[in-house]
């Protein structure tokens, strides 16, 4: 088990957002957390990435373990650096006044200077050829889909082994959505472990190996993607039929 979350309870100020959720991610898997607005999906990811309050929640009970060791005391910059776990946040949050290339370079901020970065830039450009075309453009001038590609590419450039994706399909045209998910599948086939948070449940379950359904801070269902897709409750609530 690469990453495991055990009975996690978190609060924003006085409001409890997660009421003891548990899930785990194995190496090489794609795991998805699905659920409606306010179910606690983003909160779970922020907690795993160890972001600090006020933006992120405060853990009050439970534990988050990486390869069996608690990471509750780890700083977010060390989550990226030492645990190789990178978050591509909701709403992209790219650095708009920097060029595409500078955005990608910034992601290598804490990396070993001897690492073969050229090859990794190539890998990202190979995955998202559009970024290569636009690499000298200020990133705020990119389209929404391209910005999303940049956000994923930026996370990859940190040299991560686990990718935490928060709503990568948000605001994308259907064509781009499918394209992005095909790319994610390819990444996974190359060995990347992915924890995906998604509102678009059918899309997410199509891609993922396993999934968890979150509802107002509780996990209400879990299982393989096939099991969840056939679960009548899940079907009714999230898959439109």
């Amino acid at each position: 088990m690469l990453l495991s979350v055990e009975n996690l309870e978190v609060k924003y100020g006085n409001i409890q957002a997660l009421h003891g959720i548990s899930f785990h991610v194995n190496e090489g898997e794609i795991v998805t957390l699905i659920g409606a607005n306010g179910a606690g999906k983003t909160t779970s990811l922020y907690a795993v990435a160890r972001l600090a309050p006020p933006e992120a929640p405060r853990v009050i009970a439970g534990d988050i373990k990486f390869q069996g060791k608690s990471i509750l005391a780890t700083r977010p910059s060390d989550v990226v650096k030492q645990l190789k776990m990178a978050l591509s946040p909701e709403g992209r949050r790219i650095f708009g006044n920097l060029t595409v290339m500078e955005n990608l370079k910034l992601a290598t901020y804490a990396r070993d200077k001897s690492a073969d970065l050229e090859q990794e830039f190539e890998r990202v450009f190979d995955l998202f050829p559009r970024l290569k075309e636009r690499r000298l453009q200020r990133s705020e001038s990119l389209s929404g889909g391209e910005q999303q590609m940049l956000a994923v590419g930026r996370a990859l450039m940190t040299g991560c082994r686990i990718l935490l994706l928060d709503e990568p399909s948000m605001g994308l045209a259907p064509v781009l959505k499918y394209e992005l998910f095909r790319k994610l599948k390819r990444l996974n086939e190359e060995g990347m472990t992915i924890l995906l948070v998604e509102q678009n449940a059918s899309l997410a379950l199509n891609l993922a190996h396993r999934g968890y359904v979150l509802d107002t801070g509780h996990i209400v269902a879990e299982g393989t993607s096939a099991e969840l897709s056939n679960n009548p409750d899940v079907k009714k609530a999230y898959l439109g039929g």
Partner: protein
Amino acid sequence: MLKRYSVHLILTLLGGLIVYLAYFEYLGLYFLSVLMFMGVNIILSSSLNLVNGYMGEFSCGHAGFMCVGAYVASVLGVWLFARDRVFGAPLLDPDYALYAFPVIILAGGVAAALAGLLVAFPSYKTRGDYLAIITIAANYIIISAIENMSSIGGSRGLMGMKGVINAMEDTLYLPWMPIWVFLFTIFCVWVIRRYVSSTFGKGVNAISQDEVAAEIMSVNTNKIKTITFMLSSGLAGIGGGLFAYILGYVNPGSFNILKSTEIMVMVYLGGMGSLSGSILAAIFFTILLELLRPLQIIKWIVIPLVLIILMQFRPEGIMGNRELGQIFPRLKKFYRFK
């Protein structure tokens, strides 16, 4: 070859010219002091730009750190090298004053950098308006601390820095103050330039854009904030030390919130996140203040008005977010910066 050393060449010529004019007294004392204040203002505005412009925080207590630097440098200098009513006979041979002077100014800078921690720690958890209030508070804390230290003059202020300058001139007769101000100004601008163009400095830009995104890109935001606040206030301390020696007199009242505002005006005038903008604005603002001197107190109506007009018609400042080389690409032919 010429391209590579053109900046060095121009600076050397400029420095040489100022020293030459000062030495043969072609420049009156008045012009000389305006020139020196220009240097100090360049240090102050560019160091504040580091926090307000590059890092995107809002610090309004810059004069407080300047005050720390001014007092530490003055007390050290007077105590070590000058005969003074309060501190008595000089502790060291005044012949050493010349060599020790840069160390004294730097010591003021270090003390101010430590005072910068007053603002750096709260900045981990707050930003924006809340941090601005904290920086104002820091400004007041520093001033009232010094006002209540009667051993260094309290609110009456501290004198005797002229003795240190005299000691330097006794050792070797040169216009030392203009020389030191010139050298320290170049030093400070160089440090800031190197800092913001380094890989580490890119993290500063990332913080100003989006702190959470910076954090998940493995930028250790707390560390960068600490270092940036300390560097910024440390450089302000150097500026403060020079300010004290130019005037030959310091009192806490001259480092109040009005002075902080003045520095902020220069930063916004020049443009956030533009080093050349800060420098130009400091030069322009110093001249403007001198030109408006005959207006006396009305000056403080005219200057805010100028600022309001500027914010109306060019809110991004003279240079915006750009450097000189980006506005006039042709200039790049003549110099190269790394």
